[in-house]
């Protein structure tokens, strides 16, 4: 069996088994997580060797059959999912203490992971639609696991908006099918024309995906949904689910529809991104609760990723373009890892304090040195301070903006950096007070360590040892 198929079927199988044996959901879930992560690693290893993979399901080739494909871009996101899902899953195995919660959590969790992997590996527009729907459904169900009225309300809204998003996307897909008679990404990419049909299709799909990615000004649903979900779920929602929608936007804009993109369209995306960076950071700064802060910071990050689009527009294929795309991936990965670490740590703070109101966190933050350290490391990566991967991404982004004479994006990034520093240190400063000294660094290894490791990967790992990622993305070292 091919690695591509395994990366999708293993979590599905795990979800099925965990549903059948709810009493054993946790061990089954953990085992399936480990196997899925291994399958993802296998895909990455194969892409590393071969550059790109393609699997025609059932031996039927496009346009008749459907295909799973993987290149460096998708392999990188597959790896991100594996790391975040593994870390958050491990955390969740302690976080959800009752059998009942575990039995509800694991099937949905594995379904979510299967949907993510399928999305990253899908080779045609319709498969993508199916994975988007599955992703939206499982994400909303997971978000409502806490079953508080606020969580239910927020996630019902999330579900409906997600449906609206996927339907808008489906409308675009229909146009594509009518115009080209195929849904295969590669075949459509080759047949793209600069006509109104393809442009409308792209606009519709982007709109649908922007809703799902919570791109400013369509971000209103995100903060309540992410802030009210249980911590390991928030981690996956913010780090992966939103990023998956952005991944698809990037695929369409940089790859399939690249010849269609006008400077105006790309600038519009950049402008929305700039709005997201400033508004998201500002709202995060004003947030009263830690998890709301983290959620708004996600809005800002999606915005920062959009700033790459105007700079990539019109950049001819070659080393400069490859490097900038790689910088985009590096930034997205860093944000994903850091954000999951941040949410997991926030969950621990919330559990220890009984609330997550920033103004009253005082003693709790000081009592949990490892968790506070995690908040600090993740925060440094979110700000884009060295040596995080986001710092390198930001460096290359600013360099590209200066070289292309679009200095206004630099101003946005500078303001975003300062605002994010302000909201991160608003939390960290609570850890300095005159409460009694904590006795030891780590108090609960099974929850604190996954969070710490994810944050550490974002800061030191992707910052200092990103060479394999560049190689995976096909950028020659210079």
């Amino acid at each position, binding site marked *: 069996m091919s690695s591509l198929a395994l990366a999708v079927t293993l979590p599905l199988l795990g979800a099925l088994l965990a549903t059948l044996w709810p009493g054993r959901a946790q061990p089954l879930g953990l085992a399936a997580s480990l196997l899925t992560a291994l399958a993802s690693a296998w895909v990455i290893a194969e892409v590393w060797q071969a550059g790109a993979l393609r699997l025609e399901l059932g031996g039927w080739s496009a346009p008749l059959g459907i295909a799973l494909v993987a290149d460096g871009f998708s392999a990188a996101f597959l790896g991100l999912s594996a790391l975040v899902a593994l870390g958050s899953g491990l955390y969740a195995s302690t976080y959800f203490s009752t059998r009942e919660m575990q039995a509800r959590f694991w099937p949905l969790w594995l379904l979510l992971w299967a949907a993510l992997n399928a999305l990253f590996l899908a080779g045609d527009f319709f498969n993508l639609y199916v994975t988007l729907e599955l992703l939206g459904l499982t994400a909303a169900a997971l978000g409502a696991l806490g079953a508080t009225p606020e969580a239910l309300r927020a996630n019902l809204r999330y579900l409906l908006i997600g449906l609206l998003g996927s339907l808008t996307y489906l409308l675009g897909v229909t146009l594509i099918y009518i115009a080209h008679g195929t849904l295969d990404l590669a075949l459509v990419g080759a047949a793209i024309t600069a006509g109104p049909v393809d442009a409308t299709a792209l606009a519709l799909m982007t709109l649908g995906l922007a809703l799902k990615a919570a791109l400013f000004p369509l971000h209103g649903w995100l903060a309540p949904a992410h802030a009210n979900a249980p911590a390991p779920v928030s981690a996956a929602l913010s780090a992966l689910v939103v990023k998956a929608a952005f991944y698809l936007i990037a695929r369409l804009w940089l790859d399939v529809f690249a010849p269609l993109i006008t400077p105006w369209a790309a600038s519009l995306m950049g402008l929305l991104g700039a709005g997201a960076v400033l508004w998201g950071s500002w709202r995060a700064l004003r947030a009263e609760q830690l998890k709301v802060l983290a959620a708004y910071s996600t809005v800002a990050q999606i915005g920062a990723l959009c700033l790459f689009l105007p700079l990539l527009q019109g950049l001819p294929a070659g080393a400069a373009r490859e490097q900038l795309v790689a910088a985009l991936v590096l930034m997205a990965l860093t944000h994903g890892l850091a954000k999951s670490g941040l949410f997991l740590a926030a969950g621990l703070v919330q559990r220890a304090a009984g609330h997550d109101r920033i103004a009253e966190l005082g003693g709790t933050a000081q009592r949990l040195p490892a968790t506070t*350290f995690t908040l600090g490391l993740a925060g440094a990566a979110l700000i884009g*301070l060295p*040596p995080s991967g986001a710092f390198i991404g930001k460096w290359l982004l600013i360099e590209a903006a*200066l070289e292309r004479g679009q200095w206004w994006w630099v101003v946005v990034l500078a303001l975003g950096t*300062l605002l994010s520093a302000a909201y991160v240190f608003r939390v960290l400063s609570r850890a*300095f007070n005159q409460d009694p000294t904590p006795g030891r*660094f780590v108090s609960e290894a099974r929850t604190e360590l996954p969070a710490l490791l994810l944050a550490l990967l974002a800061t030191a790992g992707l910052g200092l040892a990103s060479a394999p990622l560049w190689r995976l993305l096909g950028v020659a070292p*210079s």
Partner: protein
Amino acid sequence: MTLASLLPVAIILSSLIPGLAIFLVREESHLLRGLLNMAGALTKLALVGVLIWGVYHGHVYEARLALAPGLELVLSADALSVLFVSLSALLWLVTTVYAIGYLEHSPNRSRFFGFFSLCVSATVGIALAGNLPSFVIFYELLTLATYPLVAHRGTPDAVRGARIYLAYTLSGGVALLIGAIWLQSLSGPQDFTQGGYLSNLSEAHRGALIAIFALLLAGLGVKAALVPLHGWLPQSMVAPAPVSALLHAVAVVKAGAFGIVRLVYDVYGVEFAHALGLLGLLGALASLTILYGSLRALAQDGLKKRLAYSTVSQVSYIALGASILGPVATIGGLVHLVHQGIMKITLFFCAGNYAETLGVHRVSEMDGVGQRMPLTTLAFSLGALGMIGIPPIAGFVSKWYLGLGAIEAQAHWVLLILALSSLLNAAYFLPILYRAWFRPAPAAWPEESPRRGRFETQGALLWPPLITAAFCLLAGLLAAAPFSPLEWVELIARREYP
């Protein structure tokens, strides 16, 4: 990776690894923590010894790590890095001893010493950075590592001081980052080069180069406390005394000044910077800072605040030296990098001793402290007289070379600045010495500590200032001896002006 490339890495790791390990040490394990601290500090000192020997004999030590295409983390040791690395390694050892004594019974020591070591690692990284991106990386890491030290006490004042510190330094960091990227987009990736690497850029970039210099100088000026970017420094005085000592003598302020030196000599090149008219800007800012800092110091009653404004003033001697074209002024500025460090750390140690032993925090409370704590006050007097520029203490050598350099470069206004500044230094230091030695001691000290050893205070607090005071004296007396700071700086100047 060869042995030669391993040395700079090892010098950073010698404090980074103990630092990370200390976080994990349980709060009550004094011995283990002390052991890690001292092992790190001594290892670093030994490694730096090897480095000094090697660089003197022309060996090349360089380690490279590709972060991204066109972005490399470079650690390399030239004569200038060695100057700063040696200063950091030596003073770190002394300050660690002092800090162990100072914080013996206070809370959160594992956190404190963890970040303390990270802070020194970042400083050494700044010293060894071989190109501008690496410098920026360590410069920002230094900001992150010092924030918890400034906020350490956890009082509302400390948290506020730390927030102000952060607001200044992170804004400066953004300016530095943008300047560095802009420069790299013009010049391509380049290593620091003696004599600079920009002079063959086309004439069309002249305006951009001036703007970039201003951005970089703004970023560096925040940490170097150039007026008007100095506002954070007096606020961060809330930090514990060993932190102030380290911040003012080695780490933060010195990192800014060192960055200015790198910028002038190894990025722009002093002659090219002069041709662009940038040295005038730097000289004016430095002179303004020197006078302004001294004037503000006069008005402070808090001892640490007075010392803080004195730092604002004294660190700008380094920038002043860099702003005058000619080898002699270069020597004066660079040697002050070391001299100011040892003098200022002595003064802060002493201020900490007065506060910790007697509860004396203000100049107005210092009547007769010389009779109660003669050894500490002796060290304080040496540091203060050195700052004024009394021979044969280290500060005299700096001022002498700065003055000579000014005459050589026909910049006679600098002499006026030096004279005014020395007068002001005397005006804010001599009254302290007079009070301490000649006024009668009060019947009771504000808050006398019950703990004292055989001497006037605990040994761990007494030895460090005595040792650094001895350095101040020796650096002046033996200025012409081989491997003295002055001799080493002359080596750097010979390499900059071939």
